[in-house]
């Protein structure tokens, strides 16, 4: 139905006139949404899920990558093959035909009819100076779908369908409650009979009981019209109720994609695991494994190398992308705080190059002993490959790292974690 390949979206951050840094909102995402399914995209704020949603409906152009619309398996696999082979002509041809960013003029209007979006905040998504009827009519007029009386009649039908009634047509948005406004926004999104609708946090500004009404409405509409939907939300409960398949995003990358039940009941990626365990449950005193993640999502300008989740990951190991700086931080904590007694004040520690750390005035044996002992707590220490004693300093070499891709598992899901690299090879 809709397929995104290698989507990257970088935003310029004006730091000063001299340096231009890139905020990597979406950093290499492949995504396919099948016809008639609800795909739930979960992630915390800053994970890039909203940016991705906007790219998929063509509101933003990606820095890199392409989105093909109205395609079947055949086309996507042709595109994938072409990508693998680096067949530029084929890519060009497919892109010209299916890419949503290459459509111009009338084709663009037709495309606009076929896809639409519902936004999070029902208060700012409706123009306060337009009546409801004009708001809902707008997409029909703009894409030459319907005009005049036919359009107005359709507005009234749509309002009935979303449970508002015809009397709302002549009102202004400020006369409506949040739930009613969101219904108007849904009616607008459905005005041109689209095939694909992005729902960007459609209920997060609403109360739970109103949320339930809207979710029920969306489910009903989906069944009646065979809509394909992308449901973007930070609320895992909503996804678990609504979606068929789920993708989990973290810092601009997809961490895990798969069937809803598999991903939510039996998460594989350590991030998904901890995310789901962090969701509060309406079951008091329930005994469950709770993983409280340390730290915060990374700065999107300076992303960690290797797996972007490794600094917070409870299962991280040597190849996850540890940098000497991270190890130096942990080691100096051990030396100056935890094992202060054994070292005293004279020890100094620094990074020599990308793979080497130097500790002056210390003994290699003691360091190796401590590293062995603390490995389980401080994951960065697992990346230490070799500790050697030089004349008056200790040299530490670290492992190389591997950047994980989305590895395909037996059950059809994909996980971007090195722990599952082997499984893919078997599969």
């Amino acid at each position, binding site marked *: 139905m809709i397929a995104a390949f290698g989507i990257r979206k970088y935003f310029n951050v004006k730091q000063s006139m001299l340096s231009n840094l890139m905020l990597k909102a979406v950093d290499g995402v492949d995504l396919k949404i099948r016809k008639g399914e609800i795909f739930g995209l979960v992630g915390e704020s800053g994970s890039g899920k909203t940016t991705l949603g906007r790219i998929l409906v063509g509101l933003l152009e990606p820095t890199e990558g392409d989105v093909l619309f109205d395609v079947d398996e055949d086309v996507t696999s042709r595109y994938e093959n072409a990508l693998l082979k680096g067949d530029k002509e084929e890519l060009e041809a497919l892109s010209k035909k299916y890419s949503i960013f290459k459509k111009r003029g009338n084709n663009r209007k037709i495309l606009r009819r076929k896809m639409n979006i519902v936004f999070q905040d029902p208060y700012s998504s409706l123009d306060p100076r337009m009546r409801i009827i004009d708001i809902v009519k707008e997409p029909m007029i703009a894409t030459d779908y319907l005009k005049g009386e036919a359009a107005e009649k359709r507005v009234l039908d749509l309002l009935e369908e979303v449970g508002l009634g015809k009397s709302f047509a002549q009102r202004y948005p400020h006369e409506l409650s949040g739930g009613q406004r969101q219904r108007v926004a849904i009616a607008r999104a459905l005005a041109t009979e689209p095939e694909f609708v992005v729902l960007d946090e459609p209920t997060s500004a609403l109360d739970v009981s109103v949320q339930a009404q809207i979710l029920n409405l969306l489910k009903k509409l989906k069944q009646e019209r065979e809509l394909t939907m992308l449901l973007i939300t930070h609320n895992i409960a909503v996804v678990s109720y609504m979606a068929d398949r789920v993708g989990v995003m973290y810092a601009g990358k997809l961490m895990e994609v798969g069937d809803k039940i598999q991903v939510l009941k039996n998460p594989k990626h350590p991030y998904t695991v901890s995310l789901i365990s962090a969701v*509060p449950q309406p079951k008091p005193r329930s005994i469950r494994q709770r993983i409280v*993640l340390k730290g915060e999502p990374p700065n999107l300008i300076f992303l960690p190398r290797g797996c972007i989740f490794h600094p917070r990951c409870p299962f991280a190991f040597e190849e996850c992308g540890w940098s000497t700086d991270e190890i130096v931080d942990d080691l100096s904590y051990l030396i100056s705080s*935890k094992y202060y007694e054994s070292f005293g004040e004279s020890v100094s520690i620094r990074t020599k190059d990308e793979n080497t750390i130097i500790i002056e005035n210390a003994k290699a044996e003691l360091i190796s002993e401590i590293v062995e002992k603390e490995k389980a707590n401080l994951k960065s220490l697992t990346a230490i490959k070799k500790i050697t004693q030089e004349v008056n300093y200790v040299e530490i070499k670290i492992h190389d790292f591997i950047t994980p891709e989305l590895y395909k598992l037996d059950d059809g899901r994909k996980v971007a974690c090195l722990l599952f690299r082997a499984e893919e090879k078997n599969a």
Partner: protein
Amino acid sequence: MSEGPVIKIDDLHVYFFTRRGIYQALRGVNLTLNKGEVLGLAGESGSGKSTLGLAIMGLLPRNAIIPKGSIILGNGTDLVEKIRGKAPFKKDKLNLRKNELLIRNLNKHLQKIRGKRISMVFQEPMTALNPVLQIGYQIAETVLYHDAERLIRRALAREKVTREDLRNMIKILKNEGERGIYEYALKAGLNGIEEQIFAIWNREDIHEAKKEKMIIDLAKDKLGLFERIGLKLARKGMLKIPLISRLARRALIKEGYRVAKELLSSLGIPQVDSVVKMYPHELSGGMRQRVVIAIALANNPDVVILDEPTSALDVTIQAQILELIRNLRKKTNAAFLFISHDLSVLAEVSDRIAIMYAGKVMEVGRVEQIFEEPLHPYTKMLLDVIPTMEKDTLKPAKGTIPDARYPPPGCPFAPRCPFAKEDCLKFDREIAVTKDHIVSCILYENKK
């Protein structure tokens, strides 16, 4: 756990006057908060739950009036006495200007209580901290304006303490525990030093040897010239005189920064030395919320009101803050009023839960009672609309929350309630089904 109420709210009414009519935000709320418990307050927007929190703090806008009801602190102080039933009217209209003076008077009256005995954490950590003041200052002043004595005591004790004292105290700490330190400090005239020792001792992130060194280093940490002068002035009660008070205040604030560092590191913030000198915009949302919590805890209050403290945060950060609150509950003896629209969050932290709707309390009970045997149809609906994988459809009640200007008579949920009877329009009582499970619904009138 329950050792009597720290706050008792009785038949509290709060109205707001606007151009469009009178909003009846609270219409007879009865609630008690017991010592050491976490009371969860749930409700959708417009239920009045936030108004209740603000009413306890006395942080009311100028168009608010309290026609009747009371909020009584543990020691018997009535927090709303100063404005109850005193609203100045001109014909039917509220005289805003005079009402504002009334509320300002209330503010003055409550100033000694707020931040000292009751404190509050707001929803939006991004806007709750003053953007142009340093984090350390914002924590320090909380202590300064309530307990300047404590700051003086701390600084002077550190001035006086010797390495020998500290070595002894570490020994006592290891052998006898915290009790012994108090006695030693009192005897040596060093009270004020003990909390500094505990702050170091109770840290979890550093090794004992380092702790010992840090404690002994307290003796090295002497005052500068200006601080000494400032403290002397402060001790003589010169905090009221202009200019001189500046010097004194500066010395006290400097000591307050140390308190801030201790508090922040106890809340799990790394590198406190630099954090206290930062401005709010340099911190992430989760960090800021910790700072606000530190402010709320600075004076060891009896009651902490948490108004949606995690709603603006991401799930993983929310989990961190909830964990923090669970830990604090064990460490402090404060009672927490945790306001949230999210029942699942409340399930994680509360001992008891109160459900509010349209300015009234619908049901109060222990957390298991609310989740496992909910009584009120509204509570049942709230639980029914939490989306999960297992549910096929959600069953929300029809309609919307009633207009707070024209609340229906009797039970406010009656117009939406599937079990509503005619008598619901007259019913307005709270029924104790069991000793600690109270519901206000006609269905249970004869079942108690």
